[in-house]
């Protein structure tokens, strides 16, 4: 027999000014099942909580209904209070008479009427509430970081420093990411390599970090605290344990015409290569697409010159299966393909380059040794045009169908390019065509103004219409508009630099599918809460670090990487995880095995299994039925509304409970 107590909160004047709380408490007395009701000024205060606890003990209440603010605010408070006197916390129900009632009504009569209705609905649900107990699962004390750029490295270092084991999986032969390819960083003009390579070394030497470079995640199973991940270790054809990175093989390799992706394909490398001198791990890799020995069977020079016998042409991809408690996505970004913007002649002229290519042309470790020259003829450019927002801030239905978002870092790196270029070559004429100059950030606007005022970079509000390579002059004819002076400009440029949009790395989408982590239409991972949980995925145990969550610069990435690490450390420091008992469960006798719940589940919590059933006629039948993993289920309820046979139900929010609430409101 249910004995329900109803506690109506005034919330000072928040509720009491538009709801007659005494009338609500009085009305509760005539609701079947209610044996006690009262009102109080602040139910969430210590005195209010004691009032609830004392009443439960005095009147032997079995269920408690608190009419107060949103359950998101104080449900946990009240549950804890009743739990402290031995009541199952899920016997408590909250009726939201503040956010959904007093705050939205002006008329006290109407507000009171609605508060009474909400109270009755909550009582109706509470009548059916049953005790729920949360299960617990153990936590594997090891973290996986996917991506070895600055985001992944920082997350891994912070987790490792807290004493947990971390593995980094990186697709490239070396960690370091895009930051290692940059020349300088804005707005301080620190040398990017000089700050990122020590980090790479720190990661490489950390006793708690294992780097799986030249590897990919191919399968993720399990759930928070208990992930099992398959890592594909691509064949390097070089034994990692033997190679010393001496470079003798690279020197002798006869295959010289392999585009060097490290230098944005601006020069060539050998078929056996180490991306750059400071690579971590510093191990040679054979490019199977170009190696003569692998493709024709003839050559084998590298194995002959290798002093440690590290070359192995027979190597095969290997697969590892490792258990993790938490996974961090740090897959980073890449530049969009600008060749579809044919008006800028990127495909027609080598002197039209993307900003990342320009970065390599400026870098002392780049293909020109830091000497800025035109890729076409090796001459120093005298006039350079920078075009902003190439592929950013475009609608999907526009002709090029670029990215709708602002890539965030282009305004600043263009100012950096302009300043660095003018610093080295003061007689260069630089034009920057912008839609808006966006420089929110510490010392950012000052930096941009320095480009204008100190370096006389010509910032022009407007756009470039077309770039035409001129065969006679060898230059690029740039036609552009200055919207402030209302002029059309014709500029003879030596180089054009495109600030192309940045997009999440192509590996992010398939990874999100493996992790069952939600993504937005731009392929950015979606955070669990845009404001309050920015480094967590809605999928438990998956954390987000760096550009894969949204455009950000290096300091923002590093901060977010640290925040993600803090969340991971918080998880790994627990021995076991207490789950949310309000999860879905399937009535196996009603389940018809249709798989619809499995298809709608955003968390991958539902699997099907073949199970033996003892039928009424004493035969045994094998049926295919749904089974919910309570550790993965987040209690969203998508499966319960999808299930055609009514087999799926949500504990704490059963179909019966919801219908009772609706009936109480409508009947």
């Amino acid at each position, binding site marked *: 027999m249910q004995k329900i107590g109803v506690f109506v909160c005034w919330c000072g004047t928040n509720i009491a000014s538009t709801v007659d709380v005494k009338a609500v408490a009085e009305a509760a007395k005539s609701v079947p099942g209610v044996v006690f009701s009262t009102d109080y000024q602040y139910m969430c205060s210590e005195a209010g909580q004691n009032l609830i606890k004392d009443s439960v003990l005095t009147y032997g209440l079995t269920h408690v209904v608190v009419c107060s603010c949103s359950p998101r605010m104080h449900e946990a408070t009240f549950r804890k209070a009743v739990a402290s006197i031995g009541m199952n916390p899920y016997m408590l129900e909250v009726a939201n008479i503040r956010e959904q009632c007093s705050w939205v009504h002006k008329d006290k009569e109407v507000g009171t009427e609605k508060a009474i209705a909400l109270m009755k609905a909550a009582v109706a649900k509470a009548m059916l509430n049953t005790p729920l107990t949360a299960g617990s699962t153990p936590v594997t004390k090891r973290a996986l970081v996917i991506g070895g750029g600055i985001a992944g490295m920082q997350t891994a270092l912070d987790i490792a420093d807290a004493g947990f084991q971390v593995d980094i999986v990186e697709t490239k032969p070396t960690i370091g990411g895009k930051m290692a390819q940059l020349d300088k960083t804005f707005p301080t003009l620190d040398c990017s390599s000089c700050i990122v390579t020590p980090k790479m070394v720190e990661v490489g030497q950390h006793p708690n970090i294992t780097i799986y470079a030249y590897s990919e995640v191919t399968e993720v199973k399990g759930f928070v605290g208990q992930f099992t991940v398959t890592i594909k270790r691509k064949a390097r054809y070089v034994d990692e344990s033997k190679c010393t990175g001496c470079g003798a093989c690279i020197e002798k390799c006869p295959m010289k015409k392999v585009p060097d992706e490290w230098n944005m394909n601006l020069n060539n490398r050998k078929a056996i290569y180490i991306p750059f001198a400071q690579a971590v791990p510093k191990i040679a890799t054979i490019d199977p697409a170009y190696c003569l020995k692998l493709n024709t069977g003839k050559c084998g020079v590298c194995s002959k010159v290798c002093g440690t016998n590290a070359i192995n042409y027979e190597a095969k991809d290997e697969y590892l299966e490792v258990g993790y408690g938490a996974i961090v996505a740090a897959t980073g970004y890449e530049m969009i393909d600008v060749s579809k913007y044919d008006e800028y002649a990127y495909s027609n002229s080598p002197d039209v380059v993307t900003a990342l290519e320009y970065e390599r042309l400026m870098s002392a470790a780049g293909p020109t040794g830091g000497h800025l020259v035109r890729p076409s003829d090796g001459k120093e450019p005298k006039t350079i045009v920078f075009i902003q927002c190439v592929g950013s801030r475009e*609608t999907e239905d*526009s002709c090029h169908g670029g990215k709708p978002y602002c890539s965030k870092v282009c305004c600043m790196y263009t100012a950096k390019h302009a300043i660095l270029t003018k610093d080295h070559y003061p007689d260069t004429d630089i034009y920057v065509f912008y*839609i808006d100059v966006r420089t929110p950030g510490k010392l950012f606007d000052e930096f941009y103004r320095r480009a204008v005022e100190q370096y006389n970079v010509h910032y022009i509000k407007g756009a470039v*219409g077309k770039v035409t390579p001129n065969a006679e002059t060898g230059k690029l004819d740039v036609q552009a508009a200055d919207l402030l002076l209302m002029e059309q400009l014709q500029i003879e440029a030596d180089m054009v630099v495109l600030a192309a949009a940045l997009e999440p790395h192509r590996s992010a989408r398939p990874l999100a599918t493996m992790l069952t982590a939600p993504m937005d239409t731009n392929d950015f991972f979606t955070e669990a809460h845009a404001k309050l949980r920015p480094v967590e995925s809605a999928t438990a145990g998956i954390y987000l670090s760096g550009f894969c969550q949204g455009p950000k610069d290096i300091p923002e990435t590093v901060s977010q990487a640290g925040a993600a690490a803090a969340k991971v450390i918080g998880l790994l420091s627990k021995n076991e995880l207490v789950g949310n008992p309000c999860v879905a469960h399937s009535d196996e006798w009603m389940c018809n095995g249709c798989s619809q719940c499995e298809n709608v589940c955003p968390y991958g919590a539902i699997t099907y299994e073949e199970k033996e059933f003892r039928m009424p006629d004493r035969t045994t039948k094998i049926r295919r039925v749904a089974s919910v993993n309570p550790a993965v289920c987040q209690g969203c309820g998508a499966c319960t509304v999808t299930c055609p046979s009514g087999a799926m139900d949500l504990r704490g929010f059963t179909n019966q409970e919801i219908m009772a609430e609706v009936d109480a409101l409508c009947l």
Partner: protein
Amino acid sequence: MASVYQVTKEEIEAISGVNPLKCMRCGRCTATCPSFDNMEYHPHQFVAMVERGEIEKLVRSASVFKCMSCMACLERCPRQVQPAKLIEAVRLAVIRKQEANHLRPDDLPALVDEDLPQQAIVSAYRKFTK
């Protein structure tokens, strides 16, 4: 002076199917326009003027007929504003004047000329609005 062009901003938007509020003033249309030097108002100004309802100024400007309809502005627009469509809508508003001279079927026999392309006759019917 009362306008002879009884055309509103809403009509221009309806004829063209363009929402001028989508424009972010990047200027790529004007940068790419081959008729820039011959125009009083340039493509991005067209969009802004329609947005502000300054249709009268536009229809009185020779600029609308300097546009060559090359569609480069439409091709390059990153926000799918399509200035060329707006310009075409203004042109239509100018030539489809209310109660202006237009062909009636009765006028046809007198005009039929073997050298005259049939399209010209058909398009003459177009220049009419109810």
